[in-house]
Each structure stands twice: as structure tokens, then as C-alpha cells.
């Protein structure tokens, strides 16, 4: 596996490593699927709106768009399976592997390692949220100091990771409805219909407003945050968004004397 330097220099500026190539490719597949699925799905939900028909026709109309939707849905389900395999592989290789090497593999240690993975919410996230509200409500002018994965990013991560298992199988059942009803009662399809369309709306609204605000619309990011392409985050953004990780990395790289303060720059 490729080793990424923690800090990269481009044009005399520091950039901090965040996402490996495999992760960035997964993200590109993820958002391509989500955007295409939205474009081929929501015109059906909002069929009585004036924009629905032109958009749907642009996406291929009733003869083509449903197949694009099903195809992209299959890719997204595939991505879910791949990603699950991906973190399980990393988890067993690095964390469980180390426990075995050190002869420390117990049930307790196994779960301790499991819950210390960086996407798992911790008590620190709760403290970070409190710190954030203190700052937002002017009780302090110290911004929160997030670590490598902030609570917002954990939310971003678990939104699709809970959304896809809800949306995907429901969509598959609606697709293979004839075969589905040979085993299951048809009223389950009514339930899946709601799950599919309402969870999709929540996901789309969250991604296109909240997530895109965090990574693209916010004043210092606008018009485009580039970390999803380069995998590296600029020093200013690091200080703003991941100050705890920033100081840690700087110290680890022997740049302690160059650590900048988290004021308003």
C-alpha cells in the first residue's frame, strides 16, 4: 500500500494528508451514483412539478432513466459491500493483526480496537459539540479544536452508511417485485416505497445543502473544496477545521516551532 507523506509541500505551502487514493475513488463513485440516482429518481417523486418532465426526459425519459437508476443503484450497493470489506480488511490487518502479534487478543481488546476506529463517535465528539455551541453562541471566542475526524464528518460518513442499506435493498425489492412477492407479502413493498423515497429525500437534502455547505459553499471554501480530489488539505483549512490534529501532526513532523495559532486569520 502506498505511503502518503503526512505533510506535502506545493508552491511553498503546507498540505496535510487526509484521504488515500482508494478512499477518494470510493468517494467519486459514491457521489456519481448519488447525483445520478437523484436526477433519475426525484422527477418521479415530484412528477407533478413543472421541472420534472424536462429533467426526466433529459435523463433519458421513461424508457431509459429507470435503467440508469437501477444500474447506478447496483453500483452503489456494490460500493457499500466493497467499502465494508475495505474497512474490515484494514481493521483486521492493522489493529487485530497487531493484537495477535503482541499476543494481546482478548474480547475486551478486540472491542476496544473496534471502537477506537476513527469513524466511530466518541465522548470527545460530545465535548466538541458543546465547545462548538459555546463558540457559536458567543460564550467564548475560542473555536472548537477538532481532531482528525470531526463529529460533522462522522455524521457525513454514517449518513450514507446507514442510508444505503435502507435505500438499496428497498430499491432492489421494488425492482424485482414479482420475485419478491413469491416469498414476501406485498405490503412490504408499500413500506419499502416509503423507505426508498423518504430516506432518499433526507439524504439528498442533507448532501446538497449541509454537506456541500461544509465542503464547498462555506466562505473560505467557495466555490470548491479540493480535498476530495487531491487528498490533501491546506494549512489554513487544517487550522480552521482540525486544529487538534494539526498540532499533533506538526509536532510529530518536528515542526513544533512553526505551529500557528488558531485565531481568526
Amino acid at each position, binding site marked *: 500500500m502506498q505511503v502518503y507523506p503526512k505533510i506535502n509541500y506545493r508552491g511553498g505551502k503546507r498540505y496535510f494528508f487526509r484521504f488515500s487514493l482508494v478512499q477518494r475513488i470510493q468517494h467519486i463513485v459514491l457521489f456519481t451514483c448519488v447525483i445520478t440516482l437523484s436526477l433519475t429518481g426525484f*422527477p*418521479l417523486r415530484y*412528477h407533478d412539478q413543472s421541472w420534472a*418532465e424536462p429533467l426526466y*426526459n433529459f435523463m433519458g*425519459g*421513461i*424508457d431509459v432513466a*429507470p435503467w440508469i437508476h437501477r444500474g447506478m443503484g447496483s453500483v452503489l450497493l456494490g460500493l457499500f459491500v466493497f467499502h465494508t470489506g475495505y474497512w474490515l480488511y484494514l481493521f483486521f490487518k492493522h489493529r487485530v493483526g497487531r493484537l495477535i502479534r503482541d499476543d494481546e487478543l482478548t474480547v475486551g481488546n478486540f472491542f476496544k480496537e473496534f471502537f477506537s476506529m476513527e469513524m466511530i463517535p466518541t465522548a*470527545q465528539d460530545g*465535548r*466538541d459539540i458543546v*465547545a*462548538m455551541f459555546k463558540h*457559536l*453562541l*458567543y*460564550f*467564548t*471566542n*475560542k473555536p472548537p*479544536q*477538532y*481532531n482528525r475526524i470531526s463529529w460533522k464528518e462522522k455524521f457525513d460518513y454514517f449518513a450514507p452508511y446507514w442510508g444505503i442499506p435502507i435505500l438499496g435493498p428497498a430499491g432492489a425489492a*421494488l425492482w424485482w*417485485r*414479482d420475485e*419478491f*412477492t*413469491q*416469498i*414476501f*407479502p*406485498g*405490503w412490504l*413493498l*408499500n*413500506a419499502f416505497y*416509503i*423507505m426508498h423515497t*423518504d*430516506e432518499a*429525500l*433526507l439524504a439528498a*437534502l*442533507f448532501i446538497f*445543502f*449541509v454537506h456541500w*455547505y461544509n465542503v464547498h459553499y*462555506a*466562505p473560505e471554501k467557495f466555490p470548491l473544496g479540493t480535498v476530495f480530489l487531491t487528498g490533501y488539505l491546506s494549512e489554513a483549512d487544517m487550522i480552521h477545521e482540525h*486544529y*487538534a490534529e494539526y*498540532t*499533533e501532526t506538526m*509536532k510529530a513532523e518536528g515542526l513544533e516551532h512553526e*505551529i500557528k*495559532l488558531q*485565531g*481568526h486569520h
Partner: protein
Amino acid sequence: MGLLVVNTVHRDMTRWHSANAFLGEKSKYALLLVLLVSVFCASFWSAPVQAEDELNCVLCHKFRGLSRIDEEGNFRLFYINENLFMKGPHKRINCMDCHRDIEKIPHDPAKKVNCTTECHLLEPSGKKKFSHKPVAKILEKSVHGRFDEDGKPKEYQEDYPTCKSCHEQPLYRPLSFFKGVSSGVSRRGLGRCKTCHQTGDFAEDFYNHVTSRLQKTRESKEIVEICAKCHEDPAFQKRHGLDNVVASYKDTYHYKAIRFGSDRTADCVDCHIVYGESVHSVESMDSPTSATYKANIAQTCRNAECHHEAGEGIASYRVHVDYNNKEKNPMEYYMLKFFSGLMAAVLYFFIVVIFLELLRRLFPNFSFNSAERSGHAVTKPTTEGGE
């Protein structure tokens, strides 16, 4: 039915508007084309079209302005376009065959035509006089009939459809107008008929009649609109204790696909009529012979053109779901509430955070903590994160 007898066209202007809604862009252009072509052809035809008009009714009714305001204040147009009439299914019938109360010319206001009247045409299979009686009987026995099982008139008689409630809709007249005059599978096939059936236009008419019947004549979207004409009216629903089945149907993929131009999903008649029966035979879901009777639903869904692989489970799928009705659709109601609640909680929380964050940028250094306010708004680096 009076396909060309356009005398009621303008009775109700709203009907025209709904008629226009039926016509998609394509059919509008097709209509325009048909009109242009017929005008073009008519200019070459010096001979008038020969209708079965022994009494020369068109002597008066050919004038486009022939109209009056009737006693109810409705505008009535009595103009007959012969060219169009000659393309309709009634072209071989005398005016008087249907308008039987007319005895002298000029005549008094004529009564409404009874569609079950026997006309002079012979129905070829039984050599009996032709009439629309059989179809009227099917309608009478259906849920749309105006008498109950004991022969007593049902409540709200005026709500039950007559022939013309559906067939007077502009989309039903004249037939050839909407499907193109050249109905049929092969003009060449007609040559075989003409070898023997040489008299008059019999072969042509019969061939067109049969072959046009073999095609799907109405778009699904139009079928839905026809049913919606009554079933979408809230007052009508209330009178008969019915749900808004049109609204719930429009929530289904069946309708949405139709809405975007597909003809491969189910419209009203596909599910509410036993496969292979007349479209006039809609029955109540409580009737054991109905297509929507509990024990028959799976079979209806499994009809050859639809979910033919489906299992018995499909019967419990609910097509008409009212998401606001806690009693009728509790599962759907509470699921929708759950997702709406989740959506509101997530989005409102983040909207508030984003709003406060944007606001914070306006006063980056302000703090209620006066000690912080006076000093520099900077933070000492820590490795733990948090405060």
C-alpha cells in the same frame, strides 16, 4: 355518442379545457395535421361526401353557425361536419335511426338520443338489428349501473355515468380522428377481403372496424383523466363514501411512468376489469367476481402483460394508499411520520448550526466572557482537542 354531431361541444367550456389537457403535444400536432390534410383533400373533392342522409338533414346542419341558446342557457352548436362524420363509426346510419322523435322538417327541439335504440344495420354474427343494448346491459350490471341488485334506483342518480358521460368526451370523437384513418394492420390484407365482399364499402369498413378494435385505442393517461372526471371530485367522493383514489393512484409508479409517456404500466381499467372482459364491466371490490376482490387480486396482477411472475404475496400490496389516514393505512402513516420527523430533526439542527456559523463570522472575536474580549482571540495549541 354522436361522433360528429358536434351539437354539444360548447355546452360546457370547462370540458373543452380538460379536453385540451388530454391532448399531448404530439396529438395536438397530429390533430392539426389531420385538419390540414383534410382541408387540402377537400379542396380537390368536388363531389360532396355521401352520407346516409335520405332526408337531407345536412341541408341545414351544414352551416357552421347553426346554434342557439337553449332553455337552460347553454350554448348549443348544431353544425355537422360531413367530412368528419364520414370517418366516424356512425356513417352508415340514418339521422332518423337515432333521432326518432323528429317527424317533420323543420323540426322541434329533438330529445336526447337513446343509445340502446335498434338501428337498421344488421349485426353480422346473429343477423339481428344492431344496438348498443349489450354494452348498456354490461354497464348496468357493473358498479357504475344506476340500479341496485333489487332493481331499486341507487342514491344520487345523477352521479352514475350514462354512455355519453364518457363517450361525449372529445377524445372519443371521432374515433378515426385520434388513431389516424388508416387503422388496421395491413392495407394489403384488405385486398383479400375485397375479392369477395365487393358491394359498397363493406370490406373497408368491416376491416377497419375489426383491426382498430385490436389496437389499444386510448392512451393510459386519457383513461385516468376520464375516471378522474368523477372520482377526483371531493363532493362526489363524499356522497358515495369513496376515497380519493385518483390522488392515491397518482402516488404510484404505475401512474408516474404513464405520466412520463410510458404505456407499459397499469391504468385504472387494467386492474379494475377482469382480464379479457369489457371495459364497461367494472365491479365493486366487494363483489366476488370483481378483479379487485381480495381472492382475485393476485390473478389480476399476474395477467400476462404485467406481473406474470408474481407470487400470491402481491395481493397484499396496497395500490391506493392515503398517507394521511391513520385508521386505513397505519403503517404508511407512522412510517411517513417517522421519516418526516427524522428529516426535520436533522435538517433543522444543521440549518441552525450553519446559520449561527455564518453569523459568527461577522463578530469573530466577540465573547460574553469579558476576560477573553480584552485579550487576543487566540488559543494555545493543545494536542487533546476540545477545550
